[in-house]
């Protein structure tokens, strides 16, 4: 299974931008990059982080055939782990550095995940090539517009009908250097394989971990906590020797017969304070449902660089953001990492895809837009649209403008009859490349005065309640 892999984490550049200002990269930048690389290292020890393009990673999967039956199985497992880590991603498994990179850039959709809704059904699976020839053919077909090349050069090449990688490679490299940007020349060399350098994986630091044997086996949270407490001084000492502090701890609880439970507890901010971490571990142990008696605990401290406190020359805010972040860390520990989130808007068509909940660790100062003269009413959106039949909506009359639309419904399903019709149909469609979605949205008012946001799913031929105006 000697294959090269390219992984594109689409959400990462935006996360990294939060830690970058005019070329200066903060500690958070490296940490976000390392966290993403750590997920990938769970599937191959050889991971190269691209310096040129944030979000792009190259991996070598040679020697993993005893663990995975095929490259496809390996890629599917990696994709599952990235989905669980909340990364929107694209994966290509092939033979050459440029080949997999080009194919990844050409993938139209990413594999993503909404914590509440499960994996996105409209997403594509990782692409796995069986032969170098197939990979090369696919790479040559990729349009140049997919790559981060200078727009002027792209425009000039397009006028000459040079639109794909294959078209570009037909041109002599030296002439490109004379006529266009340096970047076009370097891209040509990359695509032709002249810059196909061997993988240069970053070596991860040695883990700071302790193994605690629980003898006799126990499942009492308080006793397990005290065993962990005894191991903490040694872990903190080792992390201090690296001139770092703890950002959290990964716990691996082993029960008999190779059953294991893995959980990670993260601090709001990296800290030397052992007590804060112990408090979060206590909360996590309280919420864990242990299937059996614990026989062994492996505690691995997550190191991070200490963040210097910035001296404030202006007035301090009345609220302590560090206290707020500690409270959020406690909630994450108690309810899971996806419990504390913020909404990020996206340019999509379907309402449930127009935003994504992303985990949040820091409390950012707000920059709201000044309020206008008149705002708009807000809709409540249901995570999963409810079938109208289960919503106690008023039933049936053929005079309704909505009901006439719905002649092919099953006889058993109730038909929607609003007392007032407030807007629609507004057709939204998407996912045509995989599983088509076609919905007609309406605003309707019930006789109780509720304004509901319903849609008719033209593919499934059913009515759903997606939200209400509140």
């Amino acid at each position: 299974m000697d294959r090269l892999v390219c992984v594109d984490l689409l959400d990462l550049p935006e996360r990294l931008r939060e830690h970058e200002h005019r070329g200066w990269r903060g500690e958070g930048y490296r940490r976000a990059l390392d966290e993403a690389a750590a997920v990938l290292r769970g599937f191959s020890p050889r991971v190269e982080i691209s310096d040129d393009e944030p979000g792009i990673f190259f991996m070598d999967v040679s020697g993993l055939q005893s663990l995975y039956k095929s490259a496809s199985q390996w890629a599917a497992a990696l994709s599952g782990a990235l989905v669980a880590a909340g990364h929107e991603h694209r994966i290509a498994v092939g033979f050459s550095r440029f080949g997999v990179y080009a194919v990844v850039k050409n993938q139209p959709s990413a594999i993503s995940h909404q914590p509440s809704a499960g994996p996105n059904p409209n997403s594509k699976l990782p692409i796995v090539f069986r032969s170098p020839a197939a990979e090369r053919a696919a790479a040559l077909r990729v349009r140049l517009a997919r790559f981060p090349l200078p727009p002027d050069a792209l425009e000039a090449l397009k006028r000459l009908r040079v639109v794909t990688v294959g078209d570009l490679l037909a041109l002599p490299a030296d002439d490109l250097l004379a006529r266009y940007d340096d970047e076009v020349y370097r891209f040509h060399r990359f695509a032709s394989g002249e810059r196909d350098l061997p993988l240069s994986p970053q070596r991860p630091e040695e883990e700071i971990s302790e193994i605690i044997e629980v003898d006799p086996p126990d499942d009492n949270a308080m006793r397990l906590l005290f065993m962990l407490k005894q191991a903490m001084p040694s872990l903190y000492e080792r992390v201090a020797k690296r001139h770092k502090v703890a950002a959290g701890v990964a716990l691996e609880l082993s029960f008999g017969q190779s059953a294991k439970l893995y959980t990670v507890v993260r601090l709001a901010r990296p800290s030397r304070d052992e007590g804060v971490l112990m408090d979060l571990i206590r909360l996590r142990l309280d919420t864990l449902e242990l299937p059996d008696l614990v026989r062994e605990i492996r505690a691995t401290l997550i190191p991070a660089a200490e963040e210097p406190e910035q001296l404030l020359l202006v007035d301090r805010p009345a609220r302590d953001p560090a206290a707020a972040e500690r409270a959020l860390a406690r909630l994450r520990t108690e309810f899971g990492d996806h419990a504390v989130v913020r909404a990020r808007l996206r340019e999509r068509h379907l309402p449930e895809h127009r935003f994504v909940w992303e985990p949040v660790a820091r409390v950012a100062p707000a920059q709201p837009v000044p309020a206008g003269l008149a705002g708009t009413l807000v809709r409540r959106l249901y995570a999963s649209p409810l079938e109208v039949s289960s919503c106690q909506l008023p039933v049936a009359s053929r005079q309704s403008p909505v009901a006439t639309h719905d002649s092919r419904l099953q006889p058993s399903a109730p038909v929607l009859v609003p007392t007032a019709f407030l807007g629609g149909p507004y057709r939204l469609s998407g996912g045509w490349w995989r599983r088509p979605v076609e919905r007609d949205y309406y605003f309707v008012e019930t006789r109780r005065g509720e304004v509901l946001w319903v849609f008719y799913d033209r593919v499934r031929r059913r009515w759903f309640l997606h939200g209400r105006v509140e």
Partner: protein
Amino acid sequence: MVSAVPLLKDEIARRGLRIAGAALAEPATRRFELAAIQGRIVELSAGTSSAALTAALVLVGEAQRKGETAAWLTARGASFFPPDAAALGIDLAALVVVRVPEAQDVARAADRLARSGGFGMVVLDLGATPATDNRQPTTSRVPVPLLSRLGALAQRHNMAVVFLTKGDAAGSLGSLVSLRAEVVRRRAKSGRFAVSVEVVKDKRAGPGWRHVEVFYGPAGLR
């Protein structure tokens, strides 16, 4: 004394008299704003034609504009529609949303946030469950000792604790609520809606006052 209005009205009716001026006939108008709810437990009740969600998000926007940190706590089944909240001027990147598995966990999570003193406003959206799950009254989701603790923390940290509940006075959270308002939405002219926050209980200023604002419907609602 605005709180005496209902009693006076009853007395006037009992004696067969008429009210000479308009002062007692119309509820007083006041601004329903952050300053009026800081340090208090506030309950916004939603009937069927309500706009409590909008009213609460308007307060969140005001809190953000005043430099306060706001958090929104809700069950996972439903939430406000973030593009609509952004249209109200809210900075979504700075609005912490806590999504807990069950509605019963909302108040417990709010307690954790309130203890920190790091938040200026906490909204507990108890009306978030989908329509099929309306059997359980909202009151049962907030134990009285927890509500009492939240009240004390709100006062100590000058924090607004806003509950969004469903139903009428019978389904209210009870006597520990400092201000209770019903948010009513009425259709106005030209595709607009008048949202009226009608205060039915106010331990500071007395009940009977209201605040009215005009809103447009979301895109497509006419």
